[in-house]
């Protein structure tokens, strides 16, 4: 009985659904026919059906009542807020662009002021990690007068590498921190000549025997080129059981911040020891000199008057030596 009953119930459900669909289609067909026969009736009925909804919609959008006015004003104010936020975001982007351009302009001006006439400014177009090892690509090549083995500087006197490959419009610069690169270095502090080893990642390493005092902040020069100051030691590793100690040198500007360099016009020429020592002495003598604008530097010569009379309290421009008191 149960089985028969369930089959009957299942069958009745299927019949009911089909019946419902059939009735719906039939009713729709009849309505469509009637709408063609009596269009006015259906038109009026449609308008009556839609009237409350249309009236509500018009009331919300156009009425001067407090509630619809509140909703409309709120919608308008929210739209204004979103527009202003968009304008603020674009303005911030514009301000950021302006600041970046100003910084770049300042860098350019500094570079132009610091670069001697025999050098040319080049922009770094690719650097590690886009390029393997410690090499950078600059946008100056043979057509712009770049020659192989020319020194490359950062600023006025910080040597960073040399031109290893010259293309028509670009050049590849091998940095002094290249793993296969070795150079003669002079460390101020212990005042010794030693060899450097490129470690990669913009870091140079100097190797000195145990017993010599090297410390953080010691300036490292590369006297193979004129004014070849590289950087200063930022870390020292020393083990008493080892015969040597290492000092790690990094440039003042990280590799990732290297945007503009200056390229020398003449290739690096290997110097003799005497010449290297002269370079060191020349750099040492003016290492702490700062280029000042005219009129800022005060010296006895700049404040002297023709007759040697005192200019102020405690200030005299006379050049005669004081008398010796016995």
């Amino acid at each position, binding site marked *: 009985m149960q089985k028969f009953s*369930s089959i009957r119930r299942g069958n009745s459900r299927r019949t009911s659904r089909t019946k419902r669909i059939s009735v*719906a289609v039939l009713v729709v067909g009849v309505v469509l026919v009637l709408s063609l026969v009596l269009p006015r009736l259906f038109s009026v009925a449609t308008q009556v059906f839609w009237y409350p*909804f249309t009236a509500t919609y018009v009331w919300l959008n156009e009425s001067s009542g407090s509630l619809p006015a509140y909703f409309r004003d709120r919608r308008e104010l929210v739209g204004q807020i979103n527009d202003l936020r968009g304008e603020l975001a674009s303005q911030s982007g514009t301000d950021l662009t302006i600041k970046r351009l100003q910084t770049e302009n300042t860098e350019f001006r500094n570079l132009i002021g610091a670069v001697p006439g025999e050098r040319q400014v080049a922009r770094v177009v690719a650097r590690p990690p886009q390029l393997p090892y410690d090499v950078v690509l600059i946008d100056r090549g043979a057509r712009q007068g770049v020659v192989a083995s020319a020194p490359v500087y950062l600023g006025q006197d910080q040597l960073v590498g040399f031109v290893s490959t010259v293309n028509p419009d670009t050049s590849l610069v091998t940095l002094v921190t290249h793993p296969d690169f070795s150079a003669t270095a002079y460390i101020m502090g212990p005042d010794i000549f030693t060899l450097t080893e490129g470690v990669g990642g913009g870091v140079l390493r100097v190797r000195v025997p145990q017993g010599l005092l090297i410390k953080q902040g010691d300036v490292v020069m590369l006297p193979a080129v004129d004014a070849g100051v590289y950087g200063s030691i930022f870390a020292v590793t020393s083990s008493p059981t080892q015969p040597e100690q290492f000092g790690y040198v990094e440039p003042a500007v990280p590799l990732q911040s290297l945007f503009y360099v200056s390229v020398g016009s003449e290739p690096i020429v290997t110097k003799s020891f005497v010449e290297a020592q002269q370079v060191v002495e020349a750099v040492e003598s003016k290492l702490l000199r700062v280029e000042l604008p005219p009129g800022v530097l005060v010296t006895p010569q700049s404040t002297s008057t023709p007759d040697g009379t005192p200019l102020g309290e405690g200030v005299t421009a006379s050049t005669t030596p004081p008398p010796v008191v016995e």
Partner: protein
Amino acid sequence: MVRIMLFITLTLLVQTGWWWLFVPIGIGYAFRYTAYELIALGFMVDWYFGGVSVVPLYGLLSLMLVIVMEWLKPALMVYTEPV
């Protein structure tokens, strides 16, 4: 009551033109109920916005929606029934 409120909401959505909201709610309404009133609403939309003489596309579309939902309901519904 819920059915009436949903139907009124669907009609208001037609008035505002928010079709992106009307479609999912309408499909859910047709799935939950045997939504003959959706067919009527479809014809009302055609006759109000397009006139009585136009081909009632929305009405026929809603009719097809109801028919499809009636066929799909047994397959989509998960229910238990005592044997």
